């Protein structure tokens, strides 16, 4: 069976992964240019490593548990997000949170004197995430703009607005806006127990709801129209699903930052697609990949003080993604390459067997085509070469393969002969070819002179079932061990 082409969702995942890579590469090269790598990238000592691995630090413990659960929740909700083909909408809504955060900060500073109440900031973020999403929907419904343009417009306008309000917020005399930037780039180090608790509760809730509404969510992701005809409240379920995404996004803002939180939603499910074609398995894998990214990323960041956790978490997710892209069992590149390779080996093998068989067939005597050829007077390599469009190199390799499998043997004079096993195999191949030729002549009105080529391209994929079908349609040929060739052999 053919491997699937990369899907839209995995492309979106690729995009996020590339973005994260570029971001970090850029950062690394800047650091390098300043000659700072030696000083600022401190490798951990063995002791520090042990401390982090055993979660001995209270602070590290809080951070790692928090990001792990965040990854888990993002992996679950993200699965439905990409299946609903809304990966980029989540990007837009996460950027749209910025003005909400800045405005919430200003309002709280004016009213309470201190603007840094996490709940207030998150509430502001959530309100603007919803506003941003509704803006996209409104533009899509009432203007001629296409989806991608609508998403782009809303993303940049809200983000620009956020930066502007942020500028005002930082210049306010009374407030202390120092930590606000962490919402853009993420800063796990400042995570408190209360933050981790909030993430944990959200994650468990989101996870439970995803499992509870698994049937409903998968239905509207696959076929919303059909769901509507059955009476499911599609719009409300959609809203509910997007609410889960918004909630996971805003609680993740502080840890990963609003630019990168979308990566945690998109990359784990895209990674999971390379391992399973079952939604339930994919959901579990996606949660596991998300959790692993959060855990490993935060762990590495805790060990190396200068690596920001958000970026490391996303890079960890990206590493898992690239590993799966290459080694994945469903549509992974390596798997696809191997399938292609084994098919081309099979084609070469079958072509060689048939060429040698037909060579011997015509060598035994033109008058007795089809009689059992005796294994004498085989062709040389140079004689086989012009019979097909194969290169000398690949022909040589193919013949070596044949000899190694003991299907052919080479005489001292460089002639190739069948072994008993090889002859048996060749009969099967030739029979398949001739059955198909006969089928083309009798059932597809093809001229006998043309069928060789037609059979040549297709015979390698004929399986037992098709052969049986052919035999039932060609009762005259079925009992013959090797039917005669309908055309003159070369």
């Amino acid at each position, binding site marked *: *069976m053919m491997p*699937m082409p990369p*899907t839209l969702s995995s492309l979106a995942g690729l995009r996020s992964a590339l973005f994260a890579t570029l971001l970090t590469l850029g950062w690394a090269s800047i650091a390098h240019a300043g000659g700072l790598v030696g000083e600022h990238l401190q490798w951990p000592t063995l002791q520090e490593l042990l401390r982090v691995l055993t979660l001995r630090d209270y602070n590290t413990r809080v951070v790692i548990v928090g990001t792990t659960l965040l990854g888990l929740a993002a992996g679950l909700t993200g699965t439905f997000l990409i*299946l609903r*083909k809304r990966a980029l909408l989540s990007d837009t809504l996460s950027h749209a949170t910025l003005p909400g955060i800045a405005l919430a900060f200003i309002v709280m500073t004016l009213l309470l004197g201190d603007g840094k109440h996490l709940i207030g900031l998150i509430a502001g973020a959530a309100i603007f995430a919803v506003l941003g999403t509704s803006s996209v929907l409104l533009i899509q*419904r009432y203007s001629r703009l296409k989806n991608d343009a609508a998403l782009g417009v809303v993303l940049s306008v809200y983000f620009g607005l956020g930066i502007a309000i942020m500028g005002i917020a930082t210049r306010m005399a009374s407030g202390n806006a120092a930590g606000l930037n962490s919402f853009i780039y993420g800063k796990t180090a400042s995570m408190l127990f209360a933050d981790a608790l909030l993430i944990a509760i959200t994650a468990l809730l989101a996870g439970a709801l995803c499992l*509870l*509404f*698994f*049937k*409903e969510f*998968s*239905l509207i*992701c*696959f*076929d*919303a*129209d*059909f*769901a*509507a*005809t*059955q*009476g*499911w409240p*599609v*719009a409300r379920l*959609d809203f509910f699903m997007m609410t889960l995404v918004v909630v996971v996004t805003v609680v993740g803002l502080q840890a990963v930052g609003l630019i990168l939180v979308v990566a945690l939603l998109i990359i784990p499910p895209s990674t999971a*697609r390379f391992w*399973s*074609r*079952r*939604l339930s398995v*994919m959901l579990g894998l996606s949660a596991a990949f998300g959790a692993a990214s959060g855990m490993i990323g935060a762990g590495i960041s805790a060990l190396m003080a200068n690596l920001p956790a958000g970026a490391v978490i996303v890079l960890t997710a990206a590493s898992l993604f690239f590993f799966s892209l290459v080694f994945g069992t469903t549509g992974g590149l390596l798997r696809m390459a191997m399938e292609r390779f084994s098919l081309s080996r099979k084609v070469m093998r079958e072509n060689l067997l048939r060429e040698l068989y037909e060579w011997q067939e015509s060598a035994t005597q033109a008058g007795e085509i089809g009689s059992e050829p005796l294994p004498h007077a085989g062709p040389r390599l140079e004689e086989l070469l012009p019979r097909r469009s194969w290169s000398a190199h690949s022909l040589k390799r193919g013949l070596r393969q044949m000899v190694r499998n003991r299907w052919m043997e080479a005489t001292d004079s460089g002639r190739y002969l069948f072994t008993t096993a090889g002859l048996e195999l060749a009969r099967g191949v030739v029979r398949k070819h001739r059955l198909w030729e006969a089928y083309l002549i009798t059932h597809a009105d093809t001229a006998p002179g043309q069928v060789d080529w037609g059979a040549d391209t297709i015979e390698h994929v004929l399986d037992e079932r098709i052969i049986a079908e052919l035999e039932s349609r060609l009762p005259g040929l079925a009992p013959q061990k090797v039917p005669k060739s309908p055309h003159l052999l070369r």
Partner: protein
Amino acid sequence: MFSLFKSKSETIVEQEPFPIWVNDLTVAYHRKPVLWDVDLTLPEGKLIAVVGPNGAGKSTLIKSILGLVPRATGDVRIYGRSYEAQRRLVGYVPQRESVDWDFPVSAADVVAMGLYGQIGWIKPVSRRHREQAVEELRKVGMEAYADRQISQLSGGQQQRVFLARALAQDARVYFMDEPFAGVDVATEKAIVALLKELKTAGKTCVVVHHDLQTVTAYFDHVVLLNMRVVAAGPVEEVFTEENLKKTYGGKLTLLSQALHKYAQQPVIGKGGTKGEHR
């Protein structure tokens, strides 16, 4: 001839209710009318083809009956009551291209979706429902592919999965949107056999169809559609050269030109797109 199938008389609703009754239905996409003043009364237990040129509004007719696209005006009744009240009586086979076949589910999973309404909120698909899904697949000759991921099926096999999902709905009226489009011979035969079976069981099937050659062989009734209903009735009466000419010929260019012009105007009526949830 028309009086039977094209009637605005309200009294029809009072009597023995027809499976499908459509009155004065007009549908517009972005204020551009696609269906214009459609009146239809379709009889029970028949195989009914909806035929017409591209852009005639065949799919839109089905979708507006099912409430998937908003109606500008008009009234639709299924067995005498609104569609919302009669959902359980209706099965739907959407166009095959309307979904992403790369979706990570198996053929049996898709068929089980036809049972979701019966299963209800939150409860998972039980073993019994799964067995029923496989049973529906058997009816379309696909039980061997129950666990196959849907992207690995051929186009015809995917179409049969969609049919099995509709069968799982166990409806009295079926709407099928181009089930014969781009399918192999085996699938075409399977669909025809299935339609006959449904008819024998007294079900009503409304099928959007594009192949004029097979209308007479496959269907009892035909609705000739080109933005409006050109003719509707038994195939032998209605499926005439003259009616086909009216449906496919250029006689409607003036109407469509006028409607196009109408659509270019600033807002006349409010053209909502409430039903579009994509």
